[in-house]
């Protein structure tokens, strides 16, 4: 469980990130609805710790996000079966058994599209002044990097007909 200092910091971060996370969740739902015509259900988020059950992640897309108040990373993380289900749905129902290199870009594109929707909404409607980096893929050993981060990680599970996947939001305050 978080200690006192950690808990206080977390409270500040979550208050600032709550609206951002809500816009991101809607953007993820809209992305899947338009790309694959499937319904995504956003579940209650939680703070990552070793006690939480999360299916083994096989592939993740990672993007750096910068705003005036906070900066950090958003990671969209997929268990193997969930991701391959999405690829099959997106790729004219051609089934895939393994996450081959040519499929990895699909995870990056999904994150890119969802972030594009969120950015347009936040920057144009609310003058959020958010910028982001080009997404990169995390596979194999690289996947452990975000769970070893010293900042609190907020995890949001999403349910789909192909199984669960997750967003990991790792943010730090810029005025520290």
């Amino acid at each position: 469980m978080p200690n006192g200092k950690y808990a206080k910091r977390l409270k500040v971060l979550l208050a600032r990130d709550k609206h951002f996370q809500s816009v991101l969740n809607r953007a993820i739902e809209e992305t899947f609805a338009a790309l694959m015509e499937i319904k995504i259900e956003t579940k209650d988020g939680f703070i990552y710790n070793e006690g939480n059950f999360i299916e083994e992640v096989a592939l993740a897309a990672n993007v750096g996000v910068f705003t005036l108040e906070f900066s950090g990373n958003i990671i969209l993380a997929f268990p193997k079966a969930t991701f391959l289900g999405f690829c099959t749905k997106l790729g004219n129902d051609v089934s895939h058994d393994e996450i081959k290199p040519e499929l990895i870009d699909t995870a990056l594109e999904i994150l890119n599209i969802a972030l594009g929707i969120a950015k347009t909404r936040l920057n144009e409607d609310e003058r959020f002044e958010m910028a982001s980096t080009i997404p990169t893929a995390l596979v194999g050993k690289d996947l452990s990097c975000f769970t070893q981060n010293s900042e609190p990680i907020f995890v949001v599970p999403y349910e789909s007909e192909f199984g669960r996947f997750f967003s990991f939001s790792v943010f730090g305050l810029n005025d520290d």
Partner: protein
Amino acid sequence: MFALDTKILVVDDTMMMRSMIKKTLTGLGFTKVFDANDGATAWPLIDAAQTEGDPFGLVLSDWNMPIMTGIELLKKIRADERLKDVPFVIVTSEGEKTKVIEAISAGITQYVVKPFTANVLKDKLDQISKQVA
């Protein structure tokens, strides 16, 4: 609406997006849909098709791609006297007004924000048909 035998080139570095856009176009009835995985691969295809007398009548391109971006490809096309009028649609996840204005300044014909439905793409193609008529 474009004639259904219009030769169309889809340019995107993500295999699944190429596949999805091609599927959408064939679903709208188009029969000659080709693809390339970035601007550098697309350019010789566009150039050769023109030289051989079987030109592309429409290019749909992603913006952010390695080697040659969609905007760089557009500028090459617009700088070529033979190709300067080819309808060029940017298909991108960048939906902010500043990006749209940048693309319009570079000479795009239309702008489609990902993700999009078949109806959105059809509407954009109808608009282009009216623009170029």
